[in-house]
């Protein structure tokens, strides 16, 4: 307890000092606020956006909505396809070269295409994010299922387990930790995909706001949004860690 408290205190001191130096340097004219913004301006921007005018809530909502939908749709599809591959190795073999090819494509470069196909709205953002999430979760599902301990398989067979039982009671549970780390990565990439697509063109969303702020050289706003996005990503990681600890107590 004492240790974590001291560690937390250390971080707090560091952050306060960092912010203070930034603010002072900017006021003293050593750091040009047109390029770096300044802490007081960033806080003011966020205060205005979330409390006074409240326009950021709407954009935050769209970004989270798109990332969530993409994450769920992409992961569920990927886990299902992974399971099909595990049960039908021939299908896996047949599909593998195409999947590798698709996965090798830089997905962000597909964003303009998706904008054309699915419009400026949330659909194109979801499409870009799914194209990232799907492959990440699929490859971790396949790896998890392949990584099953062969001793466990031998033993289960020797004890008389049917293939179905072996799959659901041995193979699948043993794949869960690997699938989970894929999900964790998938969630982060889902946010990344949505924001990247929003940066290109969008009706709503934090990425769209960011693009606008950049074009008007509002550095306080840009910095504010970057911190906001970092904070979102961090919350995702913390939440996933928490779920993982609960779910995988046996590890």
């Amino acid at each position: 307890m004492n240790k974590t408290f001291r560690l937390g205190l250390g971080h707090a001191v560091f952050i306060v000092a960092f912010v203070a130096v930034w603010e002072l340097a900017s006021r003293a004219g050593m750091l040009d606020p047109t390029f770096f913004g300044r802490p007081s301006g960033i806080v003011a921007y966020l205060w205005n956006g979330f409390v006074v005018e409240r326009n950021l809530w709407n954009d935050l909502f769209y970004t989270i909505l798109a990332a969530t939908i993409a994450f769920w749709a992409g992961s569920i599809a990927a886990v299902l396809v992974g399971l099909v591959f595990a049960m039908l190795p021939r299908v896996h073999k047949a599909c593998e070269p195409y999947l590798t090819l698709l996965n090798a494509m830089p997905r962000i470069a597909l964003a303009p295409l998706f904008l054309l196909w699915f419009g400026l709205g949330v659909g194109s953002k979801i499409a870009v994010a799914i194209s990232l999430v799907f492959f990440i979760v699929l490859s971790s599902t396949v790896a998890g299922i392949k990584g099953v301990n062969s001793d466990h398989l031998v033993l289960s067979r020797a004890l008389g387990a049917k293939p179905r039982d072996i799959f659901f009671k041995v193979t699948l549970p043993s794949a869960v930790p690997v699938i989970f780390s894929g999900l964790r990565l998938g969630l982060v990439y889902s946010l990344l995909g949505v924001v990247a697509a929003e940066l290109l063109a969008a009706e709503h969303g934090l990425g769209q706001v960011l693009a606008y702020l950049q074009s008007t050289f509002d550095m306080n706003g840009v910095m504010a949004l970057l911190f906001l996005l970092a904070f979102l990503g961090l919350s995702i990681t913390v939440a996933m860690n928490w779920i993982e600890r609960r779910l995988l107590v046996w590890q």
Partner: protein
Amino acid sequence: MNDMAAARPNGAPGAAAAPAIELNDLTMRFGVGTASTVLAVDRVSFSLAPGEFVSLIGPSGCGKTTILNLLTGLLAEEPEGDVRVLGKPPSAGNPDIAYMLARDSLLPWRSALGNAAFGMEVRGVPKKERERHALELLKEVGLGDFADKYPKALSHGMRQRCALARTFALDSPVLLMDEPFGALDAQTKLTLEDVLMRLWSAHRKTVVFVTHDLAEAIALSDRVVVMSARPGRMIADVPIDLPRPRSVRKLQSDHRFHEYYAHLWGLLEQGVGDE
């Protein structure tokens, strides 16, 4: 209690006549029809009466594991000769057989109780019943207080106790054990041998026990079957005439134990020189 026959409760008449396990001129070739045919087991014959404990010893690669696998019917290739388990030819998933391996192979996401119940679970024993029985066996192996612990929290010895509980919880009349204590330190091994002896006396199974440890083979078995280096042939079938119940620890100071040891060692040496 010392005598096998006397120890058997309600031994049905005639049951003693039918062997629990029977190998007749068993020969196993791997990769028949390919360039790399391996003769793994060469005309091995022995049989076990119900409730008998027989150890199988021999140099590495002489086909001990292969013989156990043949009894389970899990091998892809067919042997020559005749194998019978309780009068029936081997079949995969035979509920008459429980198998135990050197590595405990506990499922890390299941508690000790869940692992002890796993065999029963895949054999369709209802949940209540299997958990009650699994807990009973965990208590018998001295893990009663650890039922809800995950394998990562158990020591090597405890994990192997749990594997013993899982094996005995199946209530299969035939146990096949492939170096179950091979990976344990000497001290833990002695303790677990005693646990095994206790379980075996209480549950009376027919056991084929593969080991590289002569002392272990003598201490546990009614008979020790000695095999030669590959291709595995039978060199000898040595009855171990030591009184039961045995304490593995106390046997160390029994001169007959050491005579058996020297005898078996001689046979093994002769089998190695064979090739």
